[in-house]
């Protein structure tokens, strides 16, 4: 009986081996952080912090908040490392935490903003019409007005470059849901920007 011929190229094998090595190294780092090794903690942090910070900033648009969210994410992650089961990649688990941290903060901000708006609605009778916003501002507003799930998916995919598989893992939804959310988010954005004239 002939041996089955592998379709894997040398590059595929190298990539797979590198991924396995990374996974093993990361598991060792995690065990060392659990044991209280600061250096291991810093190494783990250096590997993931830039991407976590970048996503936090894209989602909130504020440097100070992004910094707080990133700190909060790592403090929570380190304190729960013993609960990390390795079912998903560590980066997926970490990004799940940052997404939760940012979403919770945003939810409470929106709640507060709504209350302030309701208060102001009673006191303000007349406001001058606002000047026509520029394209950048229009896009920011349009993205901001998307529902949280659509906004998150659009930012992660179209702006931060995450794959559908990564987003699905982080948000805990099937890939198909992720794709349909992106498509709906783009459609809504296009609609909101349709009236914009340059």
């Amino acid at each position, binding site marked *: 009986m002939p041996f089955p011929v592998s379709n894997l190229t040398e590059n595929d094998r190298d990539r797979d081996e590198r991924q396995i090595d990374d996974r093993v190294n990361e*598991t*060792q780092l*995690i*065990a*060392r952080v*659990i*044991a*209280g090794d*600061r250096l291991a*903690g*810093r190494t783990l*942090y*250096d590997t993931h*912090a*830039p991407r976590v*910070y*970048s996503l936090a*900033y*894209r*989602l*909130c*648009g504020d*440097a100070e908040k*992004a*910094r707080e969210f*990133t*700190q909060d994410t*790592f*403090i929570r992650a*380190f*304190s729960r490392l*013993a609960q*990390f*089961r*390795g*079912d998903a990649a560590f980066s997926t688990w970490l990004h799940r935490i940052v997404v939760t941290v940012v979403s919770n903060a945003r939810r409470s901000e929106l709640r507060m903003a709504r209350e302030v708006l309701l208060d102001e609605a009673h006191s303000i009778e007349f406001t001058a019409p606002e000047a026509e916003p520029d*394209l*950048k501002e229009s*896009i*920011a507003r349009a*993205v901001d007005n998307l529902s949280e799930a659509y906004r998150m998916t659009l*930012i992660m995919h*179209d*702006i*931060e*470059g995450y794959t559908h598989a990564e987003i699905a893992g982080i948000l805990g939804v099937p890939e198909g849901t992720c794709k349909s959310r992106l498509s709906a988010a*783009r459609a809504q*954005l*296009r609609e909101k*920007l*349709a009236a*914009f004239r340059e």
Partner: protein
Amino acid sequence: MDDNRFDDVLQDMPRSFNTPPEPPLDEMWTVIEDAHFNAPVPISATRRMTSRAPWLAAAAALIIGIGVGRYLPRNVSSPGNAGTPSAIAAKPASASDTSAVADAYRDQTTRYLGQAAALLVSLPAKDANGRTDAAFASKATDLLVTTRLLIDSPAAVQDPKLHSLLEDLELVLVQIARLRSERNKGDLDLIHQAVEQGDVLSRLNSAVATNQSSE
């Protein structure tokens, strides 16, 4: 805005929408490091256990105490001195007394280290069934109480190498003790990695050998 223009907008968004500045990595790490690594040490599993079941700590202390007592020279508790605390207090500890106590602690420690080594050696590599895990977890829980008592004992306080070994061992035992309730294949892998990285088994064996050779 036509379709082409909208596509351009989408393509340009990574550069134009909330473009992140350079992350302040060192500043953020200072806060994280301070919060995580300098935080007050949480009550360890052993301490929680002993506070919930004080009889367990008392029993372990009694066992160690009996062990130590057996090794003490008879003259320490001879009829002439016994029963009169002032007489015991007045009597300065002789070199032989101190050495006897040290011997007793060493013997108890050797016995304990042997049990811990046996537990680690027999720990399954992976895919153990739940019942086996419960047995290991139960044994680890018993050893944890003794570990904490030994960490605080004069034997460990005077021997930094032993102290460090006991602390590493305590961490591993806590992980094994958790197998009972939170079993999964990743936990066992982590335990084996912790044992390997800390070189716990060979340090255990070497500590047992050192203790036995000095008996």
